């Protein structure tokens, strides 16, 4: 569904990704693990065209998306829950969600809002509250809800567990699995490798901008190198 072929990305003169190739198939949860600064977020953002890859191709559902502007890419059935959530703090939950469904038909977007509120009852309680006044967990739920608003076939999640309490992390991972059960393909970046690999069908390990390892979630979980580097084993 999503194919990343030999992608290189630069920030000015600094090369952040080296010949990265990753594939995510329809209906899968695929996770990308790696240390701080390995290029995980860069890869996520490169898929969204911000920054654009300097070489290589990215295709989504058979259509090339590398080289086209970010806002056009994001209208093709792809949505992102970015690192640090980036909810609009001065805007209410309702307004944040409506921004997620901006380019959709009003009635259809209203239906999706209802679906999001069913999935996250907490957001219904906070519906008219400003996002900036909510807890980190609630903001993360809002960021996921906002991504769902465009009715994407695939969601990119960048460190959704960062800075959250263990009980909230569990809820977020439950939601991710629920989304997959609804037919949404998931590409998940995590530092919390243990939990990510447990729910993932497949995983990739990124080091210094190179993919160094790939395999099924279960295989990576027992892999010695992965255990040493990312699972504290």
């Amino acid at each position: 569904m999503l194919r990343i072929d030999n992608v290189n990305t630069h920030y000015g003169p600094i090369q952040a990704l080296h010949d990265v190739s990753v594939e995510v198939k329809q209906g899968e949860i695929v996770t990308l693990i790696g240390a701080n600064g390995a290029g995980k977020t860069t890869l996520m953002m490169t898929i969204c065209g911000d920054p654009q890859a300097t070489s290589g191709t990215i295709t989504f559902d058979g259509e090339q998306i590398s080289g086209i502007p970010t806002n056009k890419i994001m209208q093709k059935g792809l949505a992102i829950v970015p690192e640090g959530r980036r909810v609009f703090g001065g805007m209410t939950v309702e307004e944040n969600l409506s921004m997620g469904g901006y380019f959709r038909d009003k009635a259809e977007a209203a239906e999706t809002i209802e679906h999001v509120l069913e999935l996250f009852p907490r957001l219904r309680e906070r519906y008219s509250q400003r996002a900036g006044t909510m807890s980190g967990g609630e903001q993360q739920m809002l960021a996921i809800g906002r991504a769902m608003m465009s009715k994407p076939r695939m969601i990119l999640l960048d460190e959704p567990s960062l800075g959250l309490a263990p009980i909230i992390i569990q809820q977020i991972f439950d939601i991710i699995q629920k989304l997959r059960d609804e037919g949404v393909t998931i590409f998940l970046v995590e530092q919390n490798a243990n939990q990510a690999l447990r729910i993932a069908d497949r995983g990739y390990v990124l080091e210094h901008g190179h993919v160094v390892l790939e395999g099924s979630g279960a295989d990576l979980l027992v892999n010695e190198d992965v255990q040493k580097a990312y699972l504290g084993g």
Partner: protein
Amino acid sequence: MTETSLYVIQQLINGLTIGSTYALIAIGYTMVYGIIGMINFAHGEIYMIGSYISFIVIAGLLGMGFISLPVILIVALIVAVVIASTYGWTIERVAYRPLRGSNRLIPLISAIGMSIFLQNYVALSQSSRDVALPPQITGGWTFGDPSVFEVSFSYMQLLIWSATLLVMVLLTLFISRSRMGRACRACSEDLGMTNLLGIDTNRIIALTFIVGAALAAIAGLLLGLYYGVVNPYIGFIAGLKAFTAAVLGGIGSIPGAMLGGLILGVTEAMTSAFFPSEYKDVVSFGLLVLILLFRPSGILGKPEVEKV
């Protein structure tokens, strides 16, 4: 009432009148700054162009024998707003958009260049001398004891107050309720994220230039009628004043621009009440220096947090 207190009331009325128009122009600065973080120094010129176009339309309609003043004013308003907005949109398109993503100083220099270009373009096409229009809206109310001091509140001032109030209410509704207005707010909070939601942020940026220019054109019409004179250089000083108002209220904040405009107008009027009126510019720009030194985020602005 004593003469002094009546005089202060008169200056307050005058100050709020000028302050309203500063506020109208300041909104254009603040909206653009809020979204793309640049000061559009050509914005004062949009106000000047709005003023010229209103003059041309009013003089033209009067010359053609129209006598209904409301009709003339509404036509002038529509034409000035449409043409000024076109200028605003075009400036963004040709002078700023191609430079987006470069160093912050570069669009600023482009804006100053655009400002000089527009001034000279109007000076060449319309002559650089003052153009006058006889007062269209005369009369008003007076109160106070004629033997002490008579306070006057003219119909023209009432028009400026009510037009500004109406525009502010409409703008507030647009920003808080409409789909595009909300997208404007989303852009000013996080432009990159708004883009990541599939929203065409270039269109939203263009929209803020159009809205800002429309408001400046309204100010151009109102102040043109109030003073009865335009020349190609009025945009420079009005632009600086409105910029000061925007910084005073907190650049990036729309209520801040409204408040800053009123405070600046009243401050100037009070200064010229008790000191030679030449000092009013000294005081306004002195105020700018003081804000920048002691409260750079302005009255209603949020302190800028640099993201790491």
